[in-house]
């Protein structure tokens, strides 16, 4: 499998997401001078799509490489997977070509002409056939990461179809019905890629600790089923503000917390079993997993708060929602994926210069992300207070004190771009270094 090409593609997507994110934040803050040079309305879909495709592509590539290490994927299945990856990458390139030509369509997060969902669907179907055949041929399906990877791949297909259900005229006839479906589908889709990413995290933990029982004990299986319920029902807090039945809020509040408990439990059991020796041996990959644990705790608190309807009333549609989205996609998903890619490219055996640069990038990224995240939380609290408590109607007046917070947020974004950029650049260097090329 030409996994390096796909890893490079994923890392390029991450870099594009970061660059477009920084440019669009400045375009948002200084529209009078920048709206014609770097138009926000053009950069936002680029940023969002690049981030989305980074996470999905990175998750799939990681799970395929790790799967191949567990049991070699047969040539016929590899061919299918390579075809799927080729269609996927080509379609995404066409999507970005449309964005540069100012041509949009679809729905939020998928703001490209909707016909492009057809090759994306075809690509995913081919991937499912190739990976599915490999998965069913596995002699040992017991390790939880195998089950999680398969669950993630299957549920991405289901939620992707659900996300496109607006093509049915009946769905579009009612705005509330369509919004409910959109927010529900996107909420569940996060659960689908979390299965793939957390599965990868579990696999790395098993490999680093050398303890197979981490992925094969009663406790993790129970938590897996809880996370599966989460995937299917934790979207409730996405739709508190649209008219829904009251019981949906309470059921989803209860269930939405369990996914976080599941992951905490996984990492805690990993920590207690990993010896100091192994920690030092795989230091950089381990650092990313540790970072994801810290971000998990911060976002756990935020997610619980947001899931309480009485609090959600103030936070919905504010920067706190963005903090939650950024905190989880960057702090948790991206950290795990960077740990996984570091593990794949054997970053801990890289020359000292590369390792030092990655560590510096890591430190810059963590500090920047903390400032970035805190700015969004403070901006969200301010917006919620000014709009829901003070009832300030005029948008510009309501937002006035928030703009200064967002300036610091945009500067932190530059730090994130620089830190992550250093990691990406050095990963690419390591990925193409001579020793790895012969393996």
């Amino acid at each position, binding site marked *: 499998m030409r996994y390096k090409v796909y890893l490079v593609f994923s890392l390029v997507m991450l870099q594009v997401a970061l660059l477009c994110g920084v440019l669009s934040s400045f375009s948002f803050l200084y*529209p*009078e001078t920048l*709206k*014609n040079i770097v*138009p*926000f*309305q053009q950069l936002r879909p680029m940023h969002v799509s690049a981030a989305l495709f980074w996470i999905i592509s990175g998750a799939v590539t990681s799970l395929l490489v790790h799967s191949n290490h567990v049991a070699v994927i047969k040539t016929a299945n590899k061919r299918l997977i390579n075809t799927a990856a080729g269609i996927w990458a080509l379609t995404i390139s066409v999507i970005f070509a449309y964005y540069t030509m100012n041509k949009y369509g679809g729905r939020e997060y998928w703001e490209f002409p909707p016909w492009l969902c057809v090759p994306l669907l075809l690509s995913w179907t081919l991937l499912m056939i190739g990976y599915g055949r490999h998965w069913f041929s596995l002699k040992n399906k017991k390790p939880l990461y195998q089950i999680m990877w398969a669950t993630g791949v299957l549920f991405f297909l289901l939620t992707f179809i659900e996300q496109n259900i607006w093509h049915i005229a009946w769905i579009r006839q009612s*705005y*509330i019905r369509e919004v409910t479906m959109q927010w529900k589908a996107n909420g569940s889709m996060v659960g689908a890629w979390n299965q793939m990413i957390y599965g990868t995290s579990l696999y790395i933990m098993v490999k680093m600790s050398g303890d197979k029982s981490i992925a094969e004990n009663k406790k993790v299986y129970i938590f897996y089923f809880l996370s599966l319920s989460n995937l299917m029902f934790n979207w409730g807090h996405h739709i508190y*503000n649209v*008219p829904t039945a*009251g019981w949906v*809020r*309470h059921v989803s*509040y209860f269930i939405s917390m369990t996914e976080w408990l599941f992951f905490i439990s996984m990492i805690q059991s990993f920590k207690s079993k990993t010896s100091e020796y192994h920690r030092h041996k795989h230091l950089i990959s381990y650092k990313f997993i540790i970072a994801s644990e810290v971000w998990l705790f911060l976002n756990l608190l935020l997610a619980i708060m947001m899931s*309480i*309807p*009485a*609090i959600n*009333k103030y936070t919905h*549609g*504010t*920067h706190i929602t*963005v903090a939650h989205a950024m905190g989880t996609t960057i702090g948790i998903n991206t950290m795990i994926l960077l740990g996984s890619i570091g593990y794949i490219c054997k970053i801990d055996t890289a020359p000292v210069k590369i390792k030092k640069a990655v560590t510096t990038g890591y430190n810059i990224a963590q500090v920047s992300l903390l400032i970035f995240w805190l700015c969004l939380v403070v901006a969200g609290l301010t*917006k919620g207070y000014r709009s*829901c408590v003070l009832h300030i109607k005029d*948008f*510009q007046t309501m937002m006035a004190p928030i703009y200064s917070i967002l300036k610091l947020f945009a500067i932190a974004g530059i730090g994130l771009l620089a830190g992550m950029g250093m990691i990406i650049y050095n990963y690419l260097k390591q990925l193409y270094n001579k020793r790895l090329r012969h393996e």
Partner: protein
Amino acid sequence: MGPDLTNIISSKAENNARTFIKYGTGKMPNLHLNDEEVDNLVAYLSWIDKTGKSEVNDSNIHWTGSYIIK
């Protein structure tokens, strides 16, 4: 994060909204839409406006963490 547009037509009046969309403002870009596109956008926003009010009324907090609209 931009303003909530759910009830923009009834709060700003259709003609004002139409002018904003067509020419932009200091912060909002002029998207160079033609008359038909502006009409379609205004019709869409008018349709959304009729679905309800985006502002949640005053409420009492229930002990479960939910809220009851007054």
